[in-house]
Structures are given as C-alpha cells and as structure tokens.
C-alpha cells in the first residue's frame, strides 16, 4: 500500500522534484501546498501518512508554527526541510514531535530511510 504524502514547500520547482522523487520510491503525493494555512486545510482534508514540511513558507507563519497548529488535531508524522541547521530552529521543530530534520540540499537516501520508518496509517 502506497504511503500518502503532503508536501509543504514554497518553491514550486523543488516541490516538483520532491514529488517526482516520492513517486519514484513508491509514495503517493496527495497535495502540494506553499503556505501554512493551506497546509492545515490539506491535512484536515487528506489526512496524509506523513508531511514533508519546509520550515520557510510563503506568508508570516513558518512550517514549525503550522505544525504546532496541526498538532491540535492530528499526530501525522512530519519530516522538516530547512535551509539551515540552527540549533534553535531544530529544537523548535523537535518540540512538534518530528520524524526527521533534513538540511537543504537534502540527501534523498536519508529521506528514503526516514520515510521507510514511517508506518502506513
């Protein structure tokens, strides 16, 4: 059974690459969104098996803040992507119960390992 993914990323081309990769490793991408509010809506609507969440998004709210809100109604696993590996940011992300934290340019092999460890819901 295919794992269902939601991609939250503000860069459309990167979203396309992530989507292609996920499809290549046998996942289904249920939606791709670029900001926090649409991400929250997409989680409510699609109830994905996991989220690939960029920290920096379109708009004021970042990925961690969006995830904090999602945690109010869902315990969906999340893998964060970030442009930097700052300890403070990593700590904030960890507090939302993350499954992984990858620094851009992401290593797809590491991403695959993380996805493999996520159970199908």
């Amino acid at each position, binding site marked *: 059974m295919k794992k269902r993914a939601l991609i939250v990323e503000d*860069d459309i*081309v*990167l979203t396309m*690459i*992530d989507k*292609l*990769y996920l499809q*290549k490793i046998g996942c289904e991408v249920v939606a791709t969104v670029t900001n926090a509010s649409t991400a929250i809506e997409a989680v409510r609507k699609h109830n994905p098996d996991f989220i690939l969440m960029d920290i*920096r998004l379109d708009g004021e709210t970042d990925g961690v803040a969006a995830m904090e809100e999602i945690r109010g109604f869902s315990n969906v696993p999340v893998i964060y992507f970030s*442009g*930097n*590996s*700052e300890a403070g940011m990593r700590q904030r992300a960890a507090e939302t119960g993350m499954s992984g934290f990858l*620094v*851009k*340019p*992401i*290593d*797809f*092999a*590491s991403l695959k390992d993380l996805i493999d460890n996520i159970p199908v819901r």
Partner: protein
Amino acid sequence: MQCCDNIIILCHLSTDCQTEALLLSPVFQDKKSSVNVKERMSGVEANMHLQSEQARIRTVNLFCGATALLGSPYLFFLVRLHDYLSTAVMAAIIAVFLLCISLNRKGFIAASCLLIVINTNFSVLYFSSLLGFTSGIHLYLFTSPLIVYLLFDFKQRGKIILTFASYLFTFIAIFLIDKYQVFDYKLPDSSLIPFLYGLNFCFALILAFLLIVYFANNNASYNHVLEKQNLFLLLHKDTLMDQIAERLQAEEKLKESLQEKNVLLSEIHHRVKNNLALVSGLLELQGLSETDEKVQAVFSQSRNRIKSLAAIHESLYQSENIACIRFDQYFQKLFNEVIKLYPATAADIELRSTLQPIKLDIAQAIPCGLLVNEIISNAYKYAFTGRTRGLIQVTATEKESFVILEVRDDGCGLPPENEMRSGSLGMTLIASFVQQLKGTLEKRNENGAVFRICFPYKKIPNNVEEAYEKESIDC
C-alpha cells in the same frame, strides 16, 4: 557651523555686553541650527573662566601697583633717617612688585605669586625688625587672608597652607624679635611711633579695602555670567529636545534598515539554498534514472560538490560575521555530508580529524572545502578497495603564517605518477584549488596516500576577529 565658531571665538574676546548680545543673537535662538549646543556651552564656560582669570590678574597687578605706591613714602622717610641700606632694600621691594606686574603680563602667573608672597613676608619682617613692633608694620599681615584668596584658587590647598604658614611664621618672628630685643631700632624719635602706626594702619586698611572691592566685584560678574549661562540653557532647551527627537528618529530608521537588511540576507540565503537544493535534486533524479553504476557515481560526486558549497554557505550564514568561517566547524559539516555519500564503506572506515580552530575568510574557505571534499571522496572510492576497515585522518594546523592541511589514509596508496589518470577531474580540481589558494601540494605514499597542502594564511582583520571571538563565547 562656521558662524557659531565665530561666536565662540567672539565670546572669548568679548566684553560682558558683547557676550550677552551674542548669547541672545538669532543664530543661537535658531531651533533648527545643527550646531552642537554642548560645544557652545563649553565655549561659554571657557569664556567665563577666562574672564574671571583675567579679572584676577588685573587685581593682582593693581595690588602690586598699590603696594609699590604705598611703599614710596617710606623711601623719603628712610632717607631722612640716613639709613641708605634700608632705602635700597625698600627700593628693591618696590622694584620686585613692579617686576611682578611685568611677569603677570607675560603670563608667568605662578612665579609672580611666589615673588609676591616672598616679597610681602620679607618687607614686613625687615621693616618690623628695623622700626620695631610698635611701628605697626605687622598690620599689613592682617591683609594676608585676602592676599591668599586673591593669589590662589581654592583648589590649590597646598599653596594656600604654605602661604598662610609663611605669614604666621613672619608674625611670630616679629613678635619674638621685639620681645628679646634682637636688633637696635633705628627710630631716633619715639614721637614718630604713633605717626608711623597710623600711617601703616591706614595703608593696610587701603590695601584690605582694595582687595574686598575686587572680591565683591568679581562675585557680581561671576553671578552675571551664571545668569547668562542659565538664560542660554533656557533658550536652547527646545533645540536640545528637537535634536534628541531627531536622533531618536534616525536611530529608529537605522533599526528598520538593519531589520530590512537581515530579512534580505535571510531571503538570499533561502534562495541560494533552494537553488542548490534544486540542482542537487535534479542530479539525484537524473542519477536514479540511470542504471549504469559509473554514471550514478558521477552524479553522486557532482551532488557532493554542491553539498560542499552548501555547507560553506550555511556556515557563513550561521556565523555572526559573514566574512569568515571557522575551519573546524565547517569541516565537521563537510565530513557529515561526505560520509552520507558512501554509506556502504563509511561504517567501516573511520574518519578522524585534528583541526585547529583556524578562521578562514570566504575566499580561502571555498577552495579549501572543495579540495578536502575531493581528497576524502577519492579515499572513500579508491583507497580501501577489497578492505573491510580503514582510517582517514585530516589535520589542519597554522604555523608561521601558513595553514598546513594534511589528509592521509592507510589504504592502498597512490598509483605511480605515470599510471595516474592525467585527465581525472578530481585531480585536476585538486590542483586548481591548490593554485587558487596560492599553495603547494605534496603527494606521497606513506603507509597509504598522503596529501599535504600548504597555503599562506590570510589573517582576518582585528574587528572581524573580535566579532568572531564574541561568537565563540556566545556558543
């Protein structure tokens, strides 16, 4: 500004009326004037001090002149007594007082004050010894507190105490000389005593009066200057308030500008990282669609080079100062990225590093990072073929303005020079990066391959280094 400089200079030279006129002039009342009020205030204070000092010197001169004038009748008196030695002494005393005036005019104030103290003490002691205690010469000593107040500032406590002590000593000496009749007095006629006493009393009184008039006048002028200064402060209170408001506004603008720059920097960083991620992702996808392992390895190596650049970029972004990065911290990130690319061998090959916390500027950090990336990748790929375990050691030290970077492994070693692939991209890149660093490369076999790169250390300027130290402390 030029206008106000002129005003300050004019204040120094001006009389009281001129100063007042200048303080109340329209330029001073101009709220928009950008002239530093503090400078003006210090100008007025200096002017006040100067005026007070000039008045004091004028009074010292007046005192010397009056004393010389009051001493002149004694010359006739002493000539009548046929005491020519004392006449000469009196003339000398008068001359010294006149000399003091000359010294004051030339600016030798301290020397003049010292001469006045010596001269007054000596003249009173000499003529009291000559004419006796009853002649009333000692009455001049009662003006000594006023003389001290005239000659010295209250801050010069040592001088004041010494001067008072000298007058007290003179008075005691006169008293003792009289009591023990040390000298024979020259007065032929005792009827002259009341006349002399009266004369000295009057002269001492005139001196005291002159001095008191000076002090009263000086205080009045001092108060007048203070009043003007208060007026000046009142007039400029609004200007100061405006200047403070302007500065606060400017500070606010600076903060906003800094905030904008930070946002911009963050945005650029985000864009660069995303673009690198894009190229890396495209290579990854392209590599996945290839079945040939060799082709996949080429893509993998290219991705690795991009990640080395990304690691530099990230280190710079996280650094407080974007002009330099810490060698050891940066290399640690780099090693983590390289290890990920060789998962099959990385578990069995130990990567050990001994790195001094050398600070490299960006121009050296980039080729240096890419260089190490090439050498380590090379070792992972070729050094341990057919081996289950291995060791790669990286050391970086700073010595005599050079950075010595050594990467060694305990693998199969480098092939002989003639067997090396001359067109190998890896070796070509290594040579180019060394050239870019203006360094030297030494390759040899010593229980494995050894690469030793030596390049001149570009010292980070002090201000940058201080920021760096701060960053290290914060960490």
